[in-house]
């Protein structure tokens, strides 16, 4: 017992001595995070960059950790000249980015505007995006493939009741209908975060701006254009950057439900990287694709971030 107390006193004394010296304390503070990040983020990035110049297939992995055949820029040339699937995935991504920025962002902005008002029960309604955010992506994918089910889905029932169609549409089999499912499920994946972010930004706009403009006789539309939008410019730009990045990195829905069917219509770039690497085991080619995709993502983020006013 006495030994334990002695030990405790020594440990606390050691901690206090560490605390007194600021430089050492800072070093100890950063050590766990920096070590983890370097070992598990930077090192694999460098490693995958080196692999992308080699040919590394299944039988190579079995024998050595370093790939044996160096092929230079072969992979990069191949992906832009001979790979049709890659081009299709890039087109798909453009469609979903357009859907994200053109449909999701305005609708989420509208929802945030409505949630910003003060009315009875607004606190309850504001909880809804937070709860939606916590639902796991598996459950979301399941819900959407179930709602859009070919024979017994909810959407088919609603359309039939409304009289628009007479036979149920098999959503997963058509090219554009499958892309539509992915776009709708992306809306529900991304809207909680975007709504909450825009709502937080809207609540930070000082009320006296609105009041003084109303005294000067500004209409609601003018108030919106000249006060609301410029005040939350930062949040809007962040939302655009996030939506672009999320739509480029769309991985869950193809991985869980469609696996890229029909005929690569719902194939996303990141899922294509996964397929090349883990289903067809062309690891060198997959890492080359991953690096091109990463540079596209960074470029997209940069285009948005440089307009931020920090």
């Amino acid at each position, binding site marked *: 017992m006495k030994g334990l107390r002695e030990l405790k006193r020594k440990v606390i004394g050691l901690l206090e001595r560490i605390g007194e010296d600021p430089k050492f304390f800072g070093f100890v503070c950063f050590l766990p*995070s920096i070590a983890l990040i370097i070992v598990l983020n930077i*090192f694999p990035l460098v490693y995958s960059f080196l*692999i992308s110049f080699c040919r590394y297939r299944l039988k190579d992995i079995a024998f050595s950790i370093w790939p044996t055949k160096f092929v230079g820029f072969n992979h990069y040339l191949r992906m832009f000249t001979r790979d049709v699937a890659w081009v299709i995935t890039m087109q798909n991504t453009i469609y979903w980015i357009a859907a994200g920025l053109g449909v999701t962002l305005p609708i989420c902005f509208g929802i945030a505007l409505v949630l910003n008002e003060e009315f009875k029960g607004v606190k309850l309604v504001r909880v809804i995006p937070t709860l939606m955010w916590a639902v796991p992506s*598996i459950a979301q994918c399941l*819900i959407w493939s179930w709602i859009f089910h070919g024979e017994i889905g909810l959407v088919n029932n609603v359309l039939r009741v409304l009289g628009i169609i007479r036979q149920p549409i098999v959503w997963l089999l058509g090219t554009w209908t499958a892309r539509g499912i992915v776009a709708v499920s992306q809306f529900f994946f991304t809207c909680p975060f975007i709504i909450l972010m825009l709502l*937080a930004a809207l609540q*930070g706009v000082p009320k006296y701006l609105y009041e003084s403009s109303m005294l000067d006789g500004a209409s609601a539309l003018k108030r919106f254009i000249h006060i609301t939008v410029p005040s939350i410019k930062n949040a809007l730009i962040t939302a655009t950057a996030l939506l672009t990045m999320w739509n480029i990195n769309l*991985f869950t829905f193809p991985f869980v439900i469609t696996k890229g069917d029909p005929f690569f219509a719902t194939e996303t770039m*990141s899922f294509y990287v996964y397929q090349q690497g883990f289903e067809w085991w062309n690891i060198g080619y997959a*890492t080359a694709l991953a690096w091109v995709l990463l540079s596209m993502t960074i470029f997209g983020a940069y285009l948005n971030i440089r307009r931020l006013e920090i």
Partner: protein
Amino acid sequence: MKMILRRRISHKTLVYPLAAIIVLVLLTPYYWLMISSVMPRSEQLLWPPHWFPTNPSLHAYYEVLETPRFLQAFKNSVIITASTTIAVLIASSLAAYGLARIPFGNKKILLTVLLLIGGVPFWICCIPYFIMFRNIGLIDTHFAIILLLTVRLLPITSWVLFGFFKSIPVEIEESARVDGCSRIGAIFRIFVPLAAPGLISVGAYAFINSWNNFIVAAIIGGSNTIVLPVFVLNLMGSFSFEFRIDQLLASSIMVTILPILIIAVTQKYFIKGLFTGAVKA
């Protein structure tokens, strides 16, 4: 006078129906999930589908709970998520404290680099992870998954905590030290209680992200470390999942309950903690 009154009335009457539509549209999918999971099998596969179950039964939940894999997945989920949350809290609060309190070089560059590294998606490194871990022998272990999940969460949580810690004034700690408290004592007695809301929100964020995460466990884990979302994924199989739709729905609900509870409890810390830093940055 009359003009302002008219505008205010029309403003309010527009908001209520819009809010009702929004609630309806956003909540209908989850309502459908919950309702379908308590219907008997024959009613789930009915066309046209019923909006309300005629005789609700919990048979699907019993079936899922009796599957031995489910209990193992639940246990693994709890272990991995709890360990990840603790590790993330410790590592990111240390790093954020260092960033917020200790004066050194160019913080802005460090923060930007941290954010950029945090923006790297998982799948670009998943192939090197797989090869590295396979060679070390860590492929099917809890430790590997906890490590990867922690590393994924560290940049964002450090950044959020940094924003939070910066808002706590230094003078409080310094006055405690002037009164004779050591640095560590000042941290534990004064700083931690003030930073508790931020820590709670970051802890909830880490918990929910690691509970819902299935990509890491699907790629790096195997049959030993099956996690709840991976369990649901395995149930799905290929295209025709109608045959097991009741188990699928029930297990999805059971996976979703815990994060929703956590969010409901920590909700008020959440929005303040996560978005104050992000919006004003």
